[in-house]
């Protein structure tokens, strides 16, 4: 059976594809985190008032996904308890060894940012509730209940500074994930200095799209009107980052084709055969081209808010799928071509397996559960639902 999956000459150790769908999920989830955080910093740092309704919600989204970002890796390792070793004894020549530290740093920044922006609510809840809620919120408030004008002002100042640190660390976290792939010189499909920035751009794109979807979904569930100004503003940023993302992705392909190094034959085969559908069809067509046109139309069409909302929602769904395809094309595509440059293998996902589709789906669902718990403890709704 395996022979039918192989074309040309591959090395023995390439007969089995090691990095499965879980490793596709790893940069995907990390990207959603970075994207959601950068969307929130549009308000916190750049003072884009129209983003305000979703600014705190975006932070909670970022945290929910951040908490599961390491899960695909740990599941893939099969020995999750050994994961911490990467922080205890990091090997300095390995790009991966920094991940634990960068991730922890970012987790602290996001955690602090959320704590500061929700502190007023936390303190009020601690003072106004009884029983286990009082204990929970008092603990969250660190038993310090000062919400005077001055204290809140200090919080705001620190939150802004943190957000300023947060942007480069979000960029670093995700650019770094790109670097892990881009730094593998043996693989012609991965090895490019553009990889970190391509990953970063697609991360921002997917994060904003996810935020749009979650915003629309939560407003529909809560039966509350959508702030169209906020939605259009998010769509506007999504559109800008889509262009940047597309430019970089296509630039990489163009320069590979123009340079036509010895790797070009296998890259051509990869693009025209192995990942043709997921690359041209899903990543570029569905994930970039259609959303680009739809959001462009949203900018042109006057009034008809419901139609525009549907168009934005559809674009966002396509973007989220397209970015997943991009991660797939990088991670799986890169392993489907042989380092001999003259053979290919095929990855066949399995469903019920520790490396299979089922754990991937479960891992992808966990952040939404975490998010619903977080929004229950720290409701961000009053930003989104101004009293009419």
């Amino acid at each position, binding site marked *: 059976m*395996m*022979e039918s999956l*192989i074309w040309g000459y*591959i090395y*023995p*150790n390439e*007969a*089995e594809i090691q990095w499965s769908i879980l490793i596709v999920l790893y940069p995907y989830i990390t990207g959603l985190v970075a994207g959601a955080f950068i969307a929130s910093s549009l308000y916190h740092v750049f003072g884009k008032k129209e983003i305000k309704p979703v600014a705190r919600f975006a932070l909670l989204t970022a945290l929910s996904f951040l908490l599961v970002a390491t899960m695909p890796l740990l599941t893939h390792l099969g020995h999750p308890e050994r994961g911490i070793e990467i*922080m*205890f*004894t990091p*090997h300095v020549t390995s790009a991966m060894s920094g991940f634990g530290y960068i991730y922890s740093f970012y987790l*602290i920044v996001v955690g*602090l940012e959320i*704590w500061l922006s929700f*502190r007023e609510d936390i303190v009020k809840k601690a003072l106004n509730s009884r029983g286990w809620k009082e204990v929970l919120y008092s603990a969250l*408030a*660190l*038993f*310090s209940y*000062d919400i005077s004008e*001055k*204290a809140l002002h*200090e*919080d705001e100042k*620190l939150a802004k500074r943190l957000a300023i640190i947060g942007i480069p660390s979000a960029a670093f976290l995700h650019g770094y994930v790109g670097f892990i792939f881009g730094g593998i010189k043996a693989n012609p499909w991965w090895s490019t200095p553009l990889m970190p920035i391509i990953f970063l751009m697609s991360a921002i794109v997917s994060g904003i799209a996810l935020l749009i979807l979650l915003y629309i979904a939560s407003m529909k569930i809560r039966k509350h009107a959508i702030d169209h100004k906020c939605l259009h503003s998010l769509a506007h940023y999504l559109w800008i980052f889509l262009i940047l993302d597309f430019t970089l992705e296509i630039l990489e392909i163009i320069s590979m084709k123009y340079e036509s190094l010895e790797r070009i034959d296998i890259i051509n085969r990869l693009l025209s055969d192995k990942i043709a559908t997921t690359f041209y069809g899903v990543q570029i067509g569905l994930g970039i081209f259609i959303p680009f046109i739809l959001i462009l139309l949203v900018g042109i069409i006057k009034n008809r808010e419901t139609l525009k909302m549907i168009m934005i929602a559809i674009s966002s769904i396509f973007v989220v799928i397209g970015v997943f395809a991009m991660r797939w094309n990088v991670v799986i595509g890169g392993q489907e071509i042989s380092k001999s440059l003259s053979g290919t293998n095929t990855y066949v996902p399995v469903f019920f397996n520790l490396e299979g589709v089922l754990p991937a789906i479960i891992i992808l669902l966990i952040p939404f559960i975490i998010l619903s718990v977080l929004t229950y403890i720290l409701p961000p709704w009053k930003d989104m639902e101004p009293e009419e």
Partner: protein
Amino acid sequence: MQPHLKRVFMLLVIAIIGFVFVRSLIVPDSFGEYGWYRANSVNDIRNFPVKHAGSASCGDESCHAAIYSIWKDSGHKTVNCETCHGASGEHANNIRILPTPANDSRDFCGLCHFKRVARPENFPQIDPEIHGENLQCTYCHNPHKPWFV
């Protein structure tokens, strides 16, 4: 600084100190002495009792000289006696202690001889689904002299 900010930074400092403390407990003392591993593991491994006697010891004392001389010129000469017959360090010192019986299951032979794309084409390999009707390999093949059916 506001008291609540002091508290949160204290918490952060405690977390970092906690990490450093746990790390110092968990990382073995001799880690990194020679390289990226626990240096004492070298001694630990050296002190393990030797379990294998080596193929030569099987033919040396002319205990199994006949089968040894067949095997040593066969296609399986690179597969040591103890690969199939099990570690026999104790047996070599005291013949009353018998080594574990040889593993002659299909799956064991298959570790080397089931068809895999990663194996060189001219290496003898079979598809277990269509070859041998689930009989033990040794029913037809002589493991001490492959092809001597």
